[in-house]
């Protein structure tokens, strides 16, 4: 093929297609088809958040009315939608800040514990992963009503529930990194005169940093997407989160403002991930690690 043809995308595509020794065509098509299938419905949903009319299925023109222009029903002006957004973000932020330290400490402890309590503790940590959310939601509600009455339904209860559900995920994420890191570096530091605490603080934790970042992200994501547990622990509407609003509105007559709301959440999450990934990348560069942060995250080998 001529070099000119090779430079254009179409030219490269044709070259690839006709090359019998190149990448397997079926797999490539399949993978990209999957990505399209996975994301197109979401793109459509985001698109209708910008719809000019009330319809969520018939495109009526581009408009930002559902975001801030419509004086009654846009996300900015409808207090219930706005509050839901704030509540979702607040809850997710607090969850990640509480669940991550607890989970990191738990992961370290479980990985190194040699005593008899280790196995039951490990089992305890795995248990929430096995438990369907509806079980947890109902159970937590009852606990806060009948036993721990000093906890208010609403943000307090939701936070406690979210953290409980999230700790185990943090442990799983950090654990992978712990096993990869091993104990040599700490041992070396101790041999060189550091105390146990100093070794942990100045050697182990920095080495766990990518996993800790990933845990923050995962805790945030789990909390912001959670609906079953949150719904059961909601006090009044001021503590309703976006998923709760989406589900209840889905059973009524949803308006494109919901699409806008969910889109805002999506953009916020993407921003959060972008920040986290770039931080991860910077810390990995300091370590001299190869490859991409995204890949390592995907491998859970942070």
């Amino acid at each position, binding site marked *: 093929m001529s070099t000119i043809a090779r430079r254009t995308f179409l030219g490269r595509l044709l070259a690839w297609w006709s090359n019998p020794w190149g990448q397997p065509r079926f797999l490539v098509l399949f993978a990209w088809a999957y990505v399209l299938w996975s994301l197109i419905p979401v793109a459509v949903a985001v698109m209708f958040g910008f719809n000019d009319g009330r319809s969520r299925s018939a495109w009526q023109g581009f408009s930002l009315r559902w975001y801030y222009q419509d004086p009654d029903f846009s996300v900015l002006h409808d207090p219930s939608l706005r509050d839901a957004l704030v509540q979702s973000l607040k809850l997710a932020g607090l969850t990640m800040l509480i669940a991550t330290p607890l989970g990191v400490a738990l992961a370290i402890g479980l990985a190194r514990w040699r005593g008899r309590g280790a196995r039951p503790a490990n089992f305890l940590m795995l248990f929430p992963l096995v438990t369907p959310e509806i079980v947890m939601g109902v159970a937590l509600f009852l606990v806060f009503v009948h*036993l721990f009455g000093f906890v208010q339904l609403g943000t307090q209860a939701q936070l406690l529930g979210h953290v409980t559900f999230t700790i185990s995920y943090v442990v799983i994420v950090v654990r992978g990194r712990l096993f990869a890191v091993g104990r040599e570096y700490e041992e070396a530091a101790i041999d060189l005169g550091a105390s146990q605490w100093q070794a942990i603080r100045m050697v182990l934790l920095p080495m766990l940093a990518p996993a800790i970042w990933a845990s923050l992200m995962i805790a945030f994501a789990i909390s912001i997407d959670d609906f079953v547990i949150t719904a059961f622990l909601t006090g009044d509407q001021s503590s309703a989160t976006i998923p709760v609003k989406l589900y209840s509105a889905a059973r009524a007559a949803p308006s494109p403002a919901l699409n806008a709301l969910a889109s805002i959440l999506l953009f916020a999450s993407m921003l959060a991930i972008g920040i986290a990934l770039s931080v991860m990348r910077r810390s990995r560069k300091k370590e001299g690690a190869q490859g991409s942060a995204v890949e390592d995250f995907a491998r859970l080998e942070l």
Partner: protein
Amino acid sequence: MSKQADERGVVGERRWLWPSFALPGVVWLIILFITPLYVIFAMAMGTTDPIFGDTLPVWNPLRWDYATFGEVLNELFTGQLGLVFLRTLVYVVVATALSLLIGYPVAYYVARHAGRYRVLLLLLIIAPFWINYLMRMLAWVNLLSTDGYVNQILLFFGVLDAPREWLVGKHETVVLGLVYGYVPFLILPLFAALDRIDPRVIEAARDLGASPAQAFFRITLPLSSQGVLAGCVIIMLPMFGDYYTATLLSGSPKTNMISKLIEQNINASAGGSTGAALTIVLMVFVGLLMTYYLYSVARATKEARS
């Protein structure tokens, strides 16, 4: 050397050090996880409030009332309830199998062949984690309505003669909904497992005369089996607890999963103990699954060590 160090413990390390790290998390889980589970039992064996007619938990195990639980078990093994459980199982197994069929090639491609597009693809595959599950499902409700794009496209290509009612009690819609919802959670562990396979092992097999297909089935697939198992467990567990997918995609009792029955009972005042009893049954079943997984992981680890 490292193995010995692990067993011996670092010199000077105090025995309470690592357990004390684990303590806050363990205490939290005991207070906010184990206790609520006990409440489920207290509800399942509870009594009825004479005024409001709902279930009150009974804390003392000696006073537990097993009548409701017995009824539920009875219904399960001899009555219709077993059918719902079976249906849930079938949905989950089929959805998981389909997810595997879809997810494995994608993970394989990204792990082994994606080249310059690897990071991009990974980002696109991870993206659904941060998009609300319900929003993704609602998008499909839109697309699958009688005059939605799916029908339009299928009609256009002649696959259908008339618009199909996707959202009226169709098993396939619910299963596809589950697949759509959970397949991203499967692809990541699969990717991790496939990525860990040293490409030189495959090259060696090819050098020794294996065809690509043989190399795949006899090397790659077995080596990725732990990841496959992990991924399947990761998506099967939440699928068992899912009740909103079927509710959104089909309003018919024909497709009700067990969690929907739990939700209906819990949300009706008189159904508290039935709902709690059903929950226990569900937990036991899911627990068996998880135990099998843990056992096979432990066995694999032991094999790897020896």
